[in-house]
């Protein structure tokens, strides 16, 4: 099943997908364009931990002139950077290079501590799509990628759907693609990950406890291009959904 979190007439609702429409708990069927989309997540009692991988596809690592990492390059994000489907993300004035990153995102379903990779799928509730924007002008070589690049407000669209894990037969063989104004600029497959999802759950849970609702953004393949104000970016993953975002001009 595909789950969403939306706002209709000022009230937040959980919804599920039916025939391309949104089915609310009260039985109303609503068009996708009639609502404000939130990240497709349930509330957590404490702030969720949001992991994001850098350079986790061999081709992208090569594209950025890095050799493939020997262990995951991971950074954390905060909830303030998340936004929903069909939202706007700001490009600061004067910036030279802001790019999207289409990423398979894992939603943790159970408390996970020292999980072995063979058991890892038991700890996954579902999957969604992230667009993990980066503004490369702000890169500094201190805890890189630094938060000024990766944790800006509304710079991580998420959604539209959270798809139950049971509905994704093999998350390690899903086509990904990004379009900019309808033209395909990025295409790849989750098969290209250097560190796959079971590895990542084993790795993180070896030194920290994962909680339900925590997220793992698993990195992006090659094909990132500069995004300008007015561009409509659609990051899509096979079987999960197509996440739409529009770039708007921000202040410096």
């Amino acid at each position, binding site marked *: 099943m595909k789950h969403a979190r939306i706002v209709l007439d000022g009230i937040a609702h959980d919804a599920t997908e039916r025939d391309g429409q949104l089915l609310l708990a009260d039985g109303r069927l609503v068009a996708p364009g009639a609502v404000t989309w939130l990240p497709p997540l349930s509330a957590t009692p404490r702030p969720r931990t949001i992991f994001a991988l850098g350079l986790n596809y061999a081709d992208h690592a090569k594209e950025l002139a890095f050799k493939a990492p020997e262990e995951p390059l991971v950074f954390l994000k905060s909830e303030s950077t998340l936004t929903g489907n069909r939202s706007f993300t700001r490009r600061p004035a004067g910036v030279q290079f802001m790019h999207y990153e289409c990423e398979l995102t894992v939603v943790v379903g159970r408390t996970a501590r020292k999980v072995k990779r063979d058991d890892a799928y038991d700890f996954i509730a579902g999957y969604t799509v992230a667009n993990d924007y980066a503004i490369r002008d702000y890169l500094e*070589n*201190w*805890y890189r990628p630094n938060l*000024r690049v990766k944790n800006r407000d509304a710079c991580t669209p998420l959604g539209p759907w959270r798809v139950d894990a049971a509905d994704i037969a093999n998350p390690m063989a899903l086509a990904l693609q990004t379009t900019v104004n309808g033209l395909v600029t990025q295409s790849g497959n989750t098969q290209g990950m250097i560190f796959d999802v079971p590895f990542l759950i084993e790795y993180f849970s070896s*030194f920290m*406890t994962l909680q339900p609702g925590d997220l793992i953004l698993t990195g992006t393949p090659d094909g990132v291009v500069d995004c300008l104000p007015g561009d409509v970016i659609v990051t899509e993953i096979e079987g999960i959904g197509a996440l739409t975002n529009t770039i708007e001009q921000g202040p410096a």
Partner: protein
Amino acid sequence: MSTATSFMPSGTVYGVLLNFRGEVQALAPHMSEPPYKAPPKAPILYIKPANTWSAHGAAIVVPAKVPQVEVGATIAMVIGQDVQAARADTALESVAGYVLMNDLSIPHTSFYRPPVKYKCLDGFLGVGQALVAAQAAGDPSRFTLAVYINGLLTQSVNFANLVRNAAQLLADVSEFMTLRRGDVLTLGCDAGRPLAQAGDRIDISAPGFATLSNTLVAEETA
């Protein structure tokens, strides 16, 4: 001590690297060399996620393979109202109060990549038992704290020695992201951070704050 009244963050906890002049002086000879290539411009932040939070009095587990941990004693700002593109002269109006923190790390010498595996272990952030209201706390540049390990004074920190004072740090962080009500931003940890190991008791005391105490315990191995 009642735990029902203990403070725990409701938002994201951000730590900051190189916000003490002593830290900067120690690294300055290497800042223009690879991999850094240039001194930092914006504040260097990291996140201490919820799995790291330990209450006052709690035992903190040290992994079996880690001989010693680094004690990052600090005071943190607790945000009272959203802070976005704040000006330094008014930024402190958004601070609800201050809390003592024990920001533990596995010692590491490179600050090139994000320090998740060094700073985000379960329990690796001792959190002071109470928030001291901003008005009662007064000027954060007058804060001092002392670290005791097994009762011996091992570090004294004076928050007059910050690179960015509390107000300037809020301004420079909120330039690129909103700090939300309930978020926490530390003022940083000075150079000379003491090391501690399983079996040690760490007490962090500061005038006006209730002492933050935690003990380190060895990981139980199967």
